[in-house]
């Protein structure tokens, strides 16, 4: 069973629909107890970082989630679910994140470039990730975000995009992968990432 975490941060429907293309064993849950009966977790999400951390805390997700990830459970983070993995974000004042990956999430401040970074951008891939099989480097994916991570340990980085500055937009290690862009909104190659994830789990 793949569990899509509902922590009150945006629309989960597109993600669930995309997963359902490859397996019927998917559900949405707001209950951390469901982790025990899950083969994989997907954490999507849009909106503010601070509110997301508050919601996760309030709903009792933080400790079980950290345990799950630290035990190398299958995990796919998308957009806000990618940003929450870092130590902290400067969105509306500095806020602590899940601290799975050492690094901070900063706001884009590139003169002449619009914020949010919205639309289709190319991703340079680091080869050989099991979750990125069949996806060529420089493929376009759909982004919509105003913050980007700066990572200390580069071994996490599986893909980079360029928006005035180069920033990590796919990270992963073991059974964890997370993308800044929206694979569920990125046409065939985005769906391929979801398919690869599902195939690895099931």
């Amino acid at each position, binding site marked *: 069973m793949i569990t899509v975490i509902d922590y009150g941060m945006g*629309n989960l*429907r597109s993600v669930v629909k995309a997963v359902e293309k490859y397996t019927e064993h998917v559900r949405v849950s707001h209950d951390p107890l469901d982790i025990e009966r899950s083969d994989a977790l997907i954490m999507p999400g*849009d909106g503010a970082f601070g509110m997301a951390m508050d919601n996760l805390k309030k709903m009792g997700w933080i400790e079980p989630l950290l345990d799950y990830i630290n035990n190398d459970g299958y995990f796919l983070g998308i957009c806000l679910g990618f940003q929450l993995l870092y130590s902290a974000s400067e969105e509306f004042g500095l806020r602590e994140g899940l601290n799975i990956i050492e690094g901070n999430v900063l706001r884009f401040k590139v003169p002449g470039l619009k914020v949010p970074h*919205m639309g289709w951008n*190319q991703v340079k891939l680091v080869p050989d990730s099991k979750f990125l099989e069949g996806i060529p480097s420089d493929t376009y994916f759909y982004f919509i975000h105003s913050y980007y991570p700066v990572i200390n340990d580069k071994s996490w980085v599986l893909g980079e995009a360029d*928006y005035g500055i180069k920033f990590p937009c796919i990270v992963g290690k073991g059974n964890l992968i997370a993308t800044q862009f929206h694979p569920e*909104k990125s046409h065939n190659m985005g*769906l391929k990432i979801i398919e690869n994830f599902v195939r690895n789990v099931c």
Partner: protein
Amino acid sequence: MLAKRIIPCLDVDRGRVVKGVNFVNLIDAGDPVENGKFYDEEGADELVFLDITASSDKRNIILDMVKKVAETVHIPFTVGGGIRTLDDVRTILENGADKVSINTAAVKNPAIITESSKRFGSQCILVAIDAKRNSTGNWNVYLNGGRTKTDIDAVEWAKRTEELGAGEILLTSMDRDGTKCGYDIELTKKISESLTIPVIASGGAGTIEHLYEGLTEGKADAVLAASIFHFREISIREVKEKLKNRGIPVRIV
């Protein structure tokens, strides 16, 4: 590099695409889901569905469409037309739309921009502005699908919507809409340069050259077009290949 976006716009009345759509390869030419899927496969970067239904069961019809489109189309899509309340915004997003477009309600009650962007994130709040040039060379904002003139200056209003929390502007030139003689470049450029959020140019595209002008001289981040795609005069793929040859970064599928 971030690609410039090409966005087909579909007018929908009672759950059916209107405006003389005549796709040859589709079983059901007026089905929004089939149309959306067709554009998705052709390489559209996003879709905009503009609901023009006037009937009283509008809400149910549109939610049904949003649900079906969300199940079929795997690129972002926006739904606009008659969105008045925070609750309208919520139900459309909950049913699977990625963004909502707010026009008249944003002018009448600017707080809806702030409240909905706070609640759902500014990334999904698109403010649509219908602008028409006046005798002084500036542009007025029009409401209710262009039927009601206001004294509001379009450039000032665009800046204000950004401050209020809009994530993006869909800018339509009423002087050019339906004329196929090109976007209002001066208007597009002025607004795009005044804002830090993306601007989608709309109204007047009849050729690939017009799309090119909108993206270069007009400094738009995306271009929206209806008739040139609906009548199969030009395919999205062809548009993108021509734009690419002229140095515009585009995503070709």
